[in-house]
Structures are given as structure tokens and as C-alpha cells.
């Protein structure tokens, strides 16, 4: 009789501490994960400039990130893209977005998007200037030139 009562026992373990830890892990990864980093080409060596300050748009500003390697090639998520076509597409999409928001761009007006240039420190000016001029042709005026505050690695 005693044996049968043992077989009928249902287990109800206290899962609270386990849940606590799972939530802690989830919180940790939510805080750490940054999807924007995927758009940044970490193979580039940015110039070092002590006075460069981190970008803080508080999410109010749209950014167009351009990763430019030492050969002046534009890389989007690691894939080399044609600069002129890419920037023209982005500008067209931005204009369409502004139109749907009810604030269409007037002729000659500048786009509100900030172009973030992440160029390798060895990039020649003539290559970089071509990209800047292409952006200007599509009414981009706000630029942010990226640099590191201090040298990383060896």
C-alpha cells in the first residue's frame, strides 16, 4: 500500500530560480545585441582623432552608412556595391518616404538623412570626393565623418 502511494506522487519542482536566471540571460542578450553593428564593416581601419565624439542622434535622425575601403569601394553588408546606383536608390526611397509622410521634398531642398562616412584611413581623397559629390548631387548635405577616439589593437 505504501508503495502505491509513492507511485502516485506528482513532482512539482520550484522553477522560480531557474526562470529568474533565464530572464537574466534574456535581459543580458537584449541589452548587448545591436543590429546596427551589422551595417558596420569592422575590417576597415578608421583614422584616429582625439576630438571625434560618438554619434548621438537619439533615434531622431535617419542615417545612411557608407563603408568605403582603401580602394574607394562601397561595401554594404560586406558586398561591394556600385556607389552611384546605391546612393541614387537610397535618395529615391528617402524622397518617397517623405512624400508618404506628407512632407515632400521641394526642389533644391536638402534631404534630412545624415550620411555617415566610414572610410578606411588609407583611402585617397579623390576616391572619397567622388562619393561625397555623388551624395551632394542627390541632395544630401549632412555628413558625419567617422573616426576612432583612440587607436585599437597593435
Amino acid at each position, binding site marked *: 500500500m505504501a508503495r502505491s502511494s509513492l507511485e502516485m506522487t506528482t*513532482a512539482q519542482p520550484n522553477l522560480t530560480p531557474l526562470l529568474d536566471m533565464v530572464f537574466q540571460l534574456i535581459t543580458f542578450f537584449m541589452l548587448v545585441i545591436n543590429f546596427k*553593428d551589422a551595417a558596420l564593416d569592422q575590417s576597415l581601419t578608421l583614422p584616429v582623432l582625439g576630438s571625434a565624439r*560618438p554619434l548621438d542622434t537619439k533615434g531622431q535622425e535617419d542615417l545612411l552608412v557608407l563603408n568605403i575601403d582603401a580602394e574607394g569601394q562601397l561595401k554594404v553588408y560586406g558586398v561591394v556595391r556600385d556607389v552611384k546606383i546605391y546612393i541614387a536608390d537610397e535618395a529615391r526611397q528617402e524622397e518617397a518616404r517623405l512624400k508618404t509622410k506628407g512632407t515632400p521634398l521641394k526642389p533644391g531642398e536638402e534631404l534630412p538623412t545624415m550620411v555617415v562616412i566610414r572610410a578606411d584611413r*588609407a583611402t585617397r581623397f*579623390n576616391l572619397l570626393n567622388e562619393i561625397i559629390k555623388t551624395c551632394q548631387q542627390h541632395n544630401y548635405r549632412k*555628413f558625419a*565623418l567617422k573616426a576612432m577616439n583612440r587607436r585599437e589593437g597593435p
Partner: protein
Amino acid sequence: MRRRLSRSNADVELNLASMLDMAFQLLAFFILTFRPSPIEGQLSLHLPPAVPMTNVAAERPDVAEAAEASGTTAKTLEVSVFADATGEVSSVQVELRAAFQGPADAANLHKLDQRLHEAFALEGSPFEQVVIRVAPNLRYEELMKVIDVCTRQKMADGQMLRKISFVEMSGTDQAK
């Protein structure tokens, strides 16, 4: 009745040690492999397309008069950056006068800073923007040093200089 009592009094203890071990191992793995991307800084600029040198006198006669009285020329401030074969700065000119010769080291950049400060600090300074004429082979890192000095300047109205244009030097410009 007896069966119910035995059920309610049963004290079951699950061994969670192995699960905790695994969770801690996972946590240790993520902590050890976590590599935050380095914090990047930036220089924010307003870059209008490069246009032929704007004569401020035509647009703002009042500023032009003040500038004339103080002996300055009412126009966009022009900074020329020359490069050597390796793409490093070889010399910098401000309004066709040499600011420094040699590499863009701390001492030379300080000289450039002083020259620009003098230009912008003049009473009734007409300068609202800087046009940087850059040698085509100048490396981005070297250019950033010059831009950095330019963006430190304050205009006559007390605002920081943010309007900068770039012009690529032609071969004849570099030969000068």
C-alpha cells in the same frame, strides 16, 4: 484518505545542479566571447556642394564694409592641403600663405590652428565657410586632421564652423 495524505506530504526534490551547471557554462561562454564593438567618434559637417569662391561683398555689403575696414578680404576662407607621394600632408596654405611645411604633426597643426583662429577672430570676420582644396592622393586620415582643426574654429557669431567644402586640386595647383 490515507492515499491523499501521503500525496500531500511527499517532499520531492529535483536535482537541478546539472541544469545550473549548463546554464553557468553558457553564461561563461557568452561573457568570455563577448566583444563589444569599439566606440566610434565622428565629425559632423554640413557639406554644401563646392561652388566658385563666393564674394561675400555681393551678398552682404555690411559685412564687406566691416571686413574692408579691418583690412580683410570678404570671401570664403580657402585652405590648401598639399600631399607628398605617400599621401601624407607636405604643406598647408591658408589664403595662399603657408601655414606650415612638413607633416601634419601636433606642432604644425597647432600653427594651422593659430592661423585659422587669427582669420576667424578678426573683428567683423566675413568668413562663414571654409573651402579645403585637397591634393587628390591625400589619405583620409591626413585630411581628417586638417578638418579637425577647421571644425574647432568659431565664427564671428560665436557658432562653431560646420560649413566646409572640398575641392580636388588639379595638377597645376599641386605644382605651384
